[in-house]
């Protein structure tokens, strides 16, 4: 339905009155524009199937086609951590795909559909419908109160040629991201759309947030909890997403001495896609600030929901230094090497600043009514959920200028 006025919820200040500005759409007899928007957008999205399928890690997700040659933008989840990545197109075609490049700072990954007998840098001859992300980023962003549509493979409801699930909502906020995933802080800290619909369900990550006309607004994110309120967030990373990152790089001076220098790097989603498609994008590398750096102890604390959540042990990782030291659930860590510990955060900060693997620390632990002294030898952290690495390119593609993944620390 062309010419429908842009619709939005107007939130009356004092009255709490909710008015709909959807022009005739609600009228019982009027044709429904959402159907066409969904149908068109559905052709520009794919279902992704990859790694996972255990311990609440989904092996399914959604992706946005960003070039007629089959480049796909999605979130940088563990899903991609497999050489056997498969995508289903809107028409039911089942095709293989490979990861070209990943940027954890944007939580973004660029994939490409693999066509038999074609190198990744060759034209694939697919001529798919796609979202022009550069054009999308030049449009003004959606305002708070604007209606939005979400299209994704939430809960893996759709397979093959079944259309993705459509939801509708309102932009509640456009704000800086503050999320966590389990105990790890989320790498992306740029701006996000927060919507009132429950868009971020399993499998929805990588789906499209659209305006009423089907223009791409952003990429639906993962299932994350808000660091501040511990509630589930329904967010999408906008197509205009851009972040500035301070990276420390080793620099050689004239005499060949190496020193570290800090440099600010500006990255954006558009640039990521543009360069990524040409095989020219180089991910930013910086040590990630994650809770749990320093030596590894293996203590699992109670949910850190307060400003100063006391450092109660919820559990210990079997076989970890904490397990070896005999720490138990419900122990309260009170002192480390004589320093009083007031919160989980304080303990983690102390560990990060003062320890490294191999060091032994002395903990004063309150267990029941008594204080116990426990010696704990820190170890190297076990592998933790890593952003996925690009799939090894097929042998023929060795000459292609695909980027290598960010070096692991």
């Amino acid at each position: 339905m062309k010419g429908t006025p842009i619709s939005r919820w107007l939130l009356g200040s004092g009255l709490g009155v909710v008015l709909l500005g959807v022009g005739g759409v609600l009228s019982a007899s009027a044709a429904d524009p959402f159907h066409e928007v969904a149908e068109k957008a559905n052709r520009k999205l794919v279902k992704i199937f990859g790694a996972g399928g255990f311990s609440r890690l989904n092996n399914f997700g959604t992706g946005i086609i960003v070039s007629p040659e089959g480049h796909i933008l999605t979130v940088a989840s563990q899903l991609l951590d497999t050489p056997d990545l498969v995508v289903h197109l809107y028409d039911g075609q089942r095709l293989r795909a490979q990861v070209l490049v990943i940027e954890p700072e944007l939580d973004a990954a660029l994939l490409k559909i693999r066509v038999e007998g074609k190198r990744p840098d060759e034209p694939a001859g697919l001529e798919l419908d796609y979202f022009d992300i550069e054009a999308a980023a030049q449009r003004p962003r959606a305002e708070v109160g604007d209606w939005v549509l979400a299209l994704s493979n939430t809960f893996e409801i759709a397979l093959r040629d079944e259309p993705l699930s459509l939801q509708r909502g309102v932009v509640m906020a456009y704000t800086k991201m503050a999320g966590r995933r389990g105990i790890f802080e989320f790498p992306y800290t740029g701006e996000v759309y927060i919507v009132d619909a429950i868009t971020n369900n399993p499998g929805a990550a990588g789906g499209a947030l659209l305006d009423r006309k089907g223009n791409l607004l952003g990429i639906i994110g993962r299932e994350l909890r808000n660091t501040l309120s511990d509630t589930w967030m329904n967010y999408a990373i906008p197509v205009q997403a851009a972040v500035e990152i301070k990276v420390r790089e080793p620099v050689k001076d004239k005499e060949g001495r190496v020193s570290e220098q800090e440099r600010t790097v500006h990255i954006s989603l558009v640039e990521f896609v543009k360069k990524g498609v040409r095989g020219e994008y180089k991910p930013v590398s910086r040590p990630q600030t994650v809770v749990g750096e320093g030596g590894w102890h293996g203590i699992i604390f109670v949910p850190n929901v307060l400003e100063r959540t006391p450092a109660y042990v919820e559990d210990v990782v079997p076989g970890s230094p904490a397990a070896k030291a005999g720490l138990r659930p419900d122990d309260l860590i009170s002192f480390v090497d004589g320093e009083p510990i007031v919160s989980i955060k304080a303990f983690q900060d102390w560990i990060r600043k003062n320890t490294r693997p191999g060091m032994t620390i002395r903990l004063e632990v309150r267990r029941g009514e008594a204080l116990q002294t426990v010696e704990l030898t820190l170890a190297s952290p076990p592998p933790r959920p890593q952003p996925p690495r690009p799939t090894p390119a097929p042998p023929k593609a060795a000459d292609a200028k695909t980027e290598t993944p960010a070096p692991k620390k």
Partner: protein
Amino acid sequence: MTRLAVCTKLKRGKAQWIGWAAIALTGGICGAIGLSSPNSWATEVDQIVLQAQAERIAVIRKVAPAVVAVCRQGGQGVGSGVLISPEGYALTNFHVVQPTGPILQAGLPDGVLYDAVVVGIDRVGDVALIKLLPKQEGKPFPYVPMGDSDKVRIGDWSLAMGNPFSLALDFTPTVTYGIVSGTNRYQPPEGRGLLEYTDCIQIETSINPGNSGGPLFNMQGELIGINGRGSFEKRGRVNSGVGYAISINQIKNFLGHLHAGLDVDHATLGAIVQTAGDDAPLSQMVIGQILEESDAYRRGLRPGDQLVSFAGRVITSTNQYKNILGIFPKEWRVPIVVRRNNERMEMLVRLMGSLPQSKEGGQVKQPESGKPPVPVPVPAKEPKSMPASPAAQFYKPKAGYANWYFNELERDKLLTAFRQHGDFAALAGNWTLQGTYQRGEQKGPFRCDLLVQGEEPLVKMVLNASYELAPLKTSDPALLREPIGSGGLMLALYHYQRLLTIGPKGFEGECSHAGHEPCYPFPLDGSVPASLAELRVDCAVLRTKHGATECKWYFNRKDNRLLAFEVYVTRDQDPCEVYCHDYKAVDGRWLPHRLEVRHGDRRYAVISIEQYQFHKDKP
């Protein structure tokens, strides 16, 4: 995926908290409705918006009185429902009435709690039909019309109504408003093959525990689905933006069965349908294994055949196949198209039951060995005895049925309507049918004597050769199927006369209403139809058993005339099918004067009857 009956385990505190939030929200909506009052806001709002809002409110007002709060006896809410007829028939979920037992109560938005009884259940499809009893005899209930859920599209607006969290103590329904997220969705069964949602409607319209069984409306106020499930995961058993409604078109296929008090079963093809080459870019659906006792096998379906379409729907994925298969009751005949070696074949297949076979002509159910019996609403053995409900008089338990009372009711209604075409009770005696037959190029005289007055009934037939059958004495299936190639025409006519002259009392084994089924009478001139689907006539079915023989009788739902009947000498072989054409009055009673006899996939003969003779005495 979880069902949405009210969770009695839900912590009271939490429920209350949610309750308060909802009440606060209701307040907000009331504020919006209050726009009609003079208000500086109102003047700024586009007229079209106000009009749309007014239309929406009008639709809600129109349908809300028919929304049901399903309760246990005593008034404790367990789910929702919706009235679909002025007599008080209402749809809900099976999982809602499972805990209530057959006698229950139901609240309407008029604030009145009505007594109600379970009429029919569909355990696989998670549907139940209940009937509310009016407080005054004959007083009509408000009800809603059923829409066409095949016309629902992604993005359509929808209204869900019901009683989430048993919030409304006066049974005023809670309304939620949202869009359709997907159509033709498949959600696998929740356990033991039950509660499978096929071809369902996915909605973002908020549904919560207690919304189960409640209606999903389109914006014209037509019923398009019954809300029943949602996808939940880590966020708890409350709306997560993904709910499912059973499509009303699926329910329509079962509605005749439900009205007839049946414990209905869904269908299987009797064959495994596989995706060929799961790695291939585009998939094909291919028959894997097939049961040799299935009708599909007898119709010629073989492993390796490519399934092109099923009941008119093109099949390219497993979900699509499960979707279309799931909307049909057991024993329905549907046309399927297969491709074998580039040859396209259309066949009419009788579907098998999906639940383990446990019932044979209404006999006692044997629970699966090793498994607890599947729960069906049986009288709940309440420690505290409830006051006798007036609904109890509308409940008759019988193995294999949800409520035998309604089967008898519907059966008698059907037979009464059938007798409008002629009452043959006075003509119980020997009959002679005379005329001609045509079999291929062969023609000749036809005569059938139905001699039922002697010690032992006897059927004599002249059709090319002379035959004789003692229908009750003979047990050899080969003899019962004579004339050879007909599948049992003598037996069929014997049962036909019995139905006309004696009625239900003549079928000591069983005489029950078997719900609604399609029937496919072939053109009498022998021409090949362009598609089998265009032959379809919707029928009400009567199932009988007399001696060892089962029959199914197909009455055209438009005029209650007998369109066809099938006689099964044995259950695992093709029946003798008789299609009744060319009805003419004989002494004021209507009788068919042309019979097409079919067996397997072939026409056996067309019989033109020139004369029916009713003998008071032996001929």
